[in-house]
């Protein structure tokens, strides 16, 4: 279980590394995505419980009709909803960032942030 948190932290650090040290806009966008995916893993792990079941009241659980038993066995659904929302947001961010990167390449002929610096001072 703690492996999840370690990997989440690793992904987060990797994303920050990409953002700080990669000299390519697209790679930086990828770094941003890696960073948020680390976050998602962290969020999902928060709601996970050893041997838990999907938080949907269906199947054999439905037959027994024991809500308390179901609640004791199911994993926390809230982080899953949060992660889903966050994934949707990330899709938008990614799409916008990549289309901006295409325009950047068209105007500047490069994706190196060290050369995209006409606005400064």
């Amino acid at each position: 279980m703690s492996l999840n948190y370690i990997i989440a932290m690793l992904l987060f650090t990797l994303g920050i590394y990409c953002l700080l040290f990669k000299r390519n806009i697209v790679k930086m966008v990828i770094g941003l995505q890696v960073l948020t995916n680390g976050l998602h893993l962290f969020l999902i792990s928060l709601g996970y419980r050893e041997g838990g079941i999907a938080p949907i009241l269906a199947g054999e659980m439905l037959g027994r009709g024991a809500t308390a038993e179901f609640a004791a066995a199911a994993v926390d659904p809230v982080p899953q909803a949060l992660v889903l929302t966050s994934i949707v947001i990330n899709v938008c961010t990614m799409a916008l960032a990549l289309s901006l990167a295409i325009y950047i390449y068209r105007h500047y002929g490069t994706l190196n942030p060290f050369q995209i610096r006409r606005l400064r001072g």
Partner: protein
Amino acid sequence: MEFGPGIWGPIVATAVMLLGVAIGYLLLSISRRYMVPKPSVEKLRTYACGEVLEPEEVHVESEQFYSPIRRVFKPFYRFVRPAHTGILSTYLLWVFVGFIMILIAIVVALR
């Protein structure tokens, strides 16, 4: 009105300011009566020892406008201003430096 010690009546002050403007305008119009301005092309031009300058040449350069103030804050303009490099990576580095500084400040404050 909670404006601390002292007196600040905004309406009175505004009235006084408007009065001042009115008096100034009055003086101006009285003086105009005695000395009618006679604008000519030479008078409207910027005086440059007889040289004829185009309007574009008379225009002050915007960056040099307050050079004395720039001299006073010399360290700022030497170090902080060039730090706005326009490079995205530098700006991200700033964000992390700011993050660490704020974290230290908050840890110190909450302890």
